[in-house]
């Protein structure tokens, strides 16, 4: 095994409303569009949490993004603490056709910061995605300008308008997510060495060494 090859694992959490006055914002769809290049209108409601991983090049560096999808209904958010820990970036998703999902963004930010308690809450990287721009323009309820303003007011959170269905802006958004997460990760690199997930061979040797005679 090439142990000298430095591996970076970036943990990304996707948050956003589900079930309010419209459909959910499309967290699972965005994740699947990005990782698997697939779209389906029939993803089951997420229960608990799951993640997908994707290799991505950021500034000539190969990193693995671990993208976490969680249940959207606020009721299940108390589970968050288990999943948010060690996050490198938090993606906030709203539905551009559902004002309420946009209005909730603030509380998602608070919720996340409380539960994940990152070391540097003020500079922790968020990215905001306004999803479902493929839906008829006449149904659009949250303008790009309004969203931009909000993001600026929160200290310049990057903002993208996306369509998981049509694969619009998804790649670009996740590139930014990866980049910001990596910047975050570099800050805390000192701590991450212990967590290299690749060292299987050594672990196994220890496991079986005891009984080989």
């Amino acid at each position, binding site marked *: *095994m*090439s142990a000298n*090859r430095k*591996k970076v*694992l970036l943990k990304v959490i996707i948050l956003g409303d*589900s*079930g*309010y*006055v*419209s*459909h*959910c914002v499309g967290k699972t769809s965005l994740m699947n569009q990005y990782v698997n290049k697939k779209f389906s*209108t*029939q*993803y*089951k*409601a997420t*229960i*608990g*949490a*799951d*993640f997908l*991983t994707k*290799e991505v090049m950021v500034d000539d560096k190969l990193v*693995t993004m*671990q993208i976490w999808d969680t*249940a*959207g*209904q606020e*009721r*299940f958010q*108390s*589970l968050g*603490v*288990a*999943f948010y820990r060690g996050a490198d970036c938090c993606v906030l998703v709203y539905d551009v056709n559902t004002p309420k999902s946009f209005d909730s963004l603030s509380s998602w930010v608070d919720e996340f910061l409380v539960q994940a308690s990152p070391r540097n809450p003020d500079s922790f990287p968020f990215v905001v995605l306004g999803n479902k721009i493929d839906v008829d323009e006449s149904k659009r309820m949250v303008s790009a300008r309004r969203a931009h303003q909000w993001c600026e007011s929160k200290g310049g959170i990057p903002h993208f308008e996306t369509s998981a269905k049509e694969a619009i802006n998804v790649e670009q958004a996740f590139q930014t997510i990866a980049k910001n997460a990596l910047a975050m990760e570099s800050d805390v690199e000192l701590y991450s060495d212990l*967590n290299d*997930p*690749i060292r*299987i*061979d050594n*672990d*196994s*040797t220890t*496991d*079986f*060494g005891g*009984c*080989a*005679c």
Partner: protein
Amino acid sequence: MPARIPRWLALPDPPTGDDFYSLYSVIHLPRRFNIPKNSLHPTMEVSNSHTDTPGVPAKLLFSKSKVFVKPSANTKIPGILAIVERSPGDYLLAWKPESSIAGDEAEKFDEAVSDDNPATVTVPEPTVISEQQSPYAFSTGLKAIKSISIKPPSLNQWYGSMVINFQSGESSPPLWFHDDESPSTILQRKAGQEETSERDNNSTVWGGDEIIKRLASLVNVQKSNEQGYLYILNNEQSLALPTAPVKKQRPLSASYADPPKLDKEPAKTSGRARSSSSSFNQALSYGIYPMPPPSFMGGIALPPSAIGDSVFDPPRMDPLVATLKEAKWNLLEKFSQVTRFSRNTAGTYLLTVHMVTGQTINAPSSTSAQFLDHPLTRPIVPLLPPSVQSLANNETVKATMDDYDSARVFLAKWAAGLANQSEKSEPFDQRYRHVGIWGHDDWEEETALGVFEVLNSDSDNSIPVHTRTSPVTVEQWNSFFDEQGVLSVGEPYVRAAIFRGCLDPEARKDAWLFLTGVFPWNSSEEQRELIRKERRDAYQALKKQWQDVPEVMKSEEFCEQKHRIDKDVHRTDRSVSLFANENLPNPGSSMYTSTNHHMEVVKDILCTYNVYNKELGYVQGMSDLLTPVYAVVIEEELAFWAFVGFMDRMQANFYRDQSGMHRQLLTMDMMLQFMDPSLYKHLENTESFNLFFCFRWLLVWFKREFSWEDILSLWDVLFTDHLSTQFHLFVALAILDQHRNVIIDHLKHFDEILKYINDLALTIDLDETLQRAEILFHQFQQRMEAVDKKKLDLKKDIKEHPGWSDAERRMNTKSEIGKLPHINALLRSLLDNSTSSNSANTPSTRSRANSVLSDDAKSRDDDSFVHLEKSSPQ
């Protein structure tokens, strides 16, 4: 004349009704080995013909222990198969159960098998077995044997077997050779390996192989040409069966001096002084497995013609299986931990299987490389073809291995699949030796207690078995009721029957209406008709509360819920035919997909429930719980009430404060700590907080983990509350137990475990899981009882010695009590079942658990209650 299939081969009838515990506690009585006495050849004496005659001393020529007779799926009798010489030239082949052999005699049997100690031990003639000891024991003169059918070990049947067909036309029961349990075989192998270490050790001995060889040294043995593994004895006059060509019928003595010619040096063995039979062995083993070293592949690829020149075709194992067994033996030398071993090496076997059969490996090459690098695999690597070996050194493959996604989780999945296959190839009665505490060799150490004498016993009787059987048919279901439609067999009986076999789809609707509490168990058909009517009206009234009230329909709160329901119904079980098509326009204004009748009914039921249970309302996940109930019941009104009954027990899962889920996860947590401390410790080390990876399982009763049909069957079982009102937690434990070695060995982080568990969805074998869950329940119960008893004994000790001046002794006893596993109200509630609860007709686990909890809270001396509070989540 083909061998007859003896009558006793038929399995015993599946257990029914009252004898549920008979299988669990009492070993099934074997059926009689039925040989009509007078039809036997004079030299063949069946066990029960002389009950008290002492045996005639005979020279033991060969014996083999751990040869099993298996009268039924659940019964196996270990015995010794022996060849003895009663007087010069008068040979007997005998089998007797080990239980009938006295201790000192057993040693003789074991000693005699060694080749270097040419067998002159006198033993009683092994025909004298009383009927009570075993109806299967037999002894027969070799002349009375017509033929022997052999089944070498195969991938389907891990142990080889043989059936002896007598001249009289009768047959013996199959004798199963459990070579890996036989001390003599193990000894023999050790000796063999020392002596032949320089020789390429490709021959693998199995019992049937040996016995045929020994017989061949005494009488004429020929292999049948027509039937795969049939060996004909005493065939001088060439009878009905066509046999191998004459040249293969050379006297065996010739073969000693003239072993089959091979490329590789048989000369190496010639200098050694060995008994004639062992040199025969060796000569033959070259004939059997003429695999030119070092290439393992060469041996496998050898065409059958290459061995055609041997004296006769011995009962050869499938070369593949031979190699696998060989691998097992070799590894066994290195890793003495047999239980762990069988799982850990499973991957290795199967890897080898894939390699030699040329089948595609269903895993990227990177994983193969990983396996080749694995310490357990290393002994195998030299056996693999060069092309596969080179994989391990391929840079691309190495690089791929570094990728996070293809690493541990993937490897673990693969390993689990292989371990599973390997387990399934074990004989049925061996399969569950690995379940729960019996499969966990480090358990004792973990608890540091010697309290579970009963549990640690190796005797099979202490190992609970499952009682799973076939589904309850609609005829059976109807037979439970009398003419008035009143249950005539008792509610516990019905629950047990459904628990054990699930329900046929036609019987399910009625049964679920009882199980969900819509119909009382003691109701008559007439009463149920009234209930139907009354429930229909009640439902319609509830439905009107939202449908006919514009203020409700327009309220923001209701609209929110309505949309949530719409959205969820449109993504619930859409692959099930009932909900698949979209032939109606969607009435919901914001929905742009079409709908169908059944989806609309499901929405209505959920909206009505939202009104019915105002406090809780609709929560995501409920649609998953309703669709099966609706699909089974179909009538909207009754489906609603069945759902209400179901939700009574499930609603705590959806509480706003998540207290219900926390409670379940906490119970699960304690159960795991109690049942599998090493897995628990591993999960702790990986920071797998509060078993969150089980969240989805428990929230919707495994709805996402099994196929639609399996879910219906699983819920049949869970609805019964037969063993436990929380049997679903034992199902969860069973799934974890099935994967515990893989989790411990391969998964080091919380996220890996979560991913692994999530990805188990739709790969879990329901039957296997239910069998395991039942066994785990019984283990749990046994352990609880053992701990309780121990605690009581220790407390009594203290009480009975109030005057113990020895403070130290007092303290020791107290600290012993402290070391016992904590049992709290949550753990105890796992033993609640349908009969222990007063409210069997209105299943509400919540109220039950609460009452149990408060009961226990009152008894403050239960130290574990403090423990419960301490470990509760904030």
